[in-house]
């Protein structure tokens, strides 16, 4: 089995040309705008972002489905990262599963699986058959004859059975019902534990998937807002609740992500963990300290300016 692939993006810019032009011009709004981050080899990394944040563009770069307009993209095992563009060794080790499925549209689904068995060096046909049974996919049908949920399941099976050193699931669960999604998460964890590799999962349903992640990359408007271990992110922000004046005193000088006034009570979400003595002081001042779930942190950090309720502390 091939060693897991990591990845590195440096100041990556991607511009899509406006419909009338063949090549992008600097006037086109960038889909990625100076994105820099690292994907650790062997991790399950979540790629989070609102619609249009650049998730799909970033993932397509790693699979060499497109080239960056600027900056560098490198993929490969630790210590020997390479440009994936037109690089057979790297691309044979990267399986991108997109919503479209990337299946033969006019053939039975089984044809796609036969093709993949030939091009994916670490392909596991037994696993593919087992999962297709579990997800109740009739492989004799053409993709168009399957429901959206079943097509998503086909994508999930392709990603899992590829055992690719870098396996990427781009919003793979769309159209899957809840039991199928959970069956997918279970199959992913089970297979990952036995066959460690790098897995990227993009999603905006943070709550359901966050516990699968070791690392998290948050994209916002084409930039990498943060890339951190998931545990650090969960510990990153704190909510402070209590009498307004006391909350303001503790929050003073800290970046405020969100504030909500409930009569005399103020709740403020501050960015950055509090040191143990600061926590104790805040509690002595009568404040209640609470954790900020990843989902909430994500919402606070990627809020559009127009919809913001955040105000700076005067």
């Amino acid at each position: 089995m091939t060693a897991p692939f990591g990845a590195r993006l440096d100041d990556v810019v991607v511009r899509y040309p406006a419909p009338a032009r063949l090549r992008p011009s600097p006037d086109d709004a960038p889909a990625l705008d100076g994105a820099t981050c690292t994907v650790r080899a062997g991790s399950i990394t979540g790629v989070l972002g609102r619609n249009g944040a650049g998730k799909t563009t970033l993932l397509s770069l790693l699979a060499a489905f497109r080239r960056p307009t600027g900056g560098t993209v490198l993929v490969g095992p630790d210590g020997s990262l390479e440009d994936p563009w037109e690089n057979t060794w790297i691309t044979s080790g990267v399986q991108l599963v997109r919503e479209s499925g990337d299946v033969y549209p006019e053939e039975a689904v089984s044809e796609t699986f036969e093709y993949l068995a030939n091009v994916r060096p670490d392909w596991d046909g037994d696993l593919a058959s087992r999962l297709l049974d579990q997800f109740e996919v009739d492989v004799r049908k053409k993709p168009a004859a399957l429901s959206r949920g079943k097509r998503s399941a086909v994508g999930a099976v392709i990603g899992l059975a590829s055992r690719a050193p870098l396996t990427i699931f781009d919003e793979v669960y769309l159209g899957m019902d809840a039991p199928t999604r959970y069956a997918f998460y279970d199959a992913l964890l089970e297979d990952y534990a036995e066959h460690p590799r790098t897995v990227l999962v993009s999603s905006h349903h943070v709550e359901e998937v966050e516990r699968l992640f070791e690392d998290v990359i948050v994209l916002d408007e084409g930039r990498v807002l943060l890339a951190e271990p998931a545990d650090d992110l969960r510990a990153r922000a704190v909510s402070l609740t209590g009498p307004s004046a006391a909350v303001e005193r503790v929050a003073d000088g800290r970046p405020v992500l969100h504030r909500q006034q409930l009569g005399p009570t103020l709740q403020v979400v501050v960015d950055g963990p509090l040191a143990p003595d600061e926590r104790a002081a805040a509690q002595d001042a009568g404040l209640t300290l609470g954790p900020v779930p990843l989902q909430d942190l994500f919402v606070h950090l990627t809020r559009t300016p127009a919809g913001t309720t955040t105000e700076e502390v005067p």
Partner: protein
Amino acid sequence: MNRVFDGPEPIYVQIAQMIRGQVLARELTEEDQVMSTTQFATTFRINPATAAKAFGQLVDEGVLYKRRGLGMFVAPGARERLLDEHRRRYFAEVLEPALVQAELLEIPLDSIVDHVRGRAHGTTRGTDPEVSS
């Protein structure tokens, strides 16, 4: 099972806490094998590295030890070690906040002492004015 480990601490801290609790309650005894990281990951739908981090912490504390190729087992003397550790922290972390709260509620120390004595003798559960929580 997915909504276990919902507390404010990092998940690996909560997993370690759960195993410590099981050892203290004798649900896990010396030389018992604990679930593998894979079983933990699939049972609770968490990243296997998260479970591994918890196990690493418990190995450092002498609660678990690793048998090569077999898995994680409860270390001899693990319960005694945990009892020592938890007893040491009991007064600072459990009793002290309760006494601070009592002060805030203006509950006289005597009635707390009476309550504790009564409980020890099994005679009554509440000689004190209605103390909730």
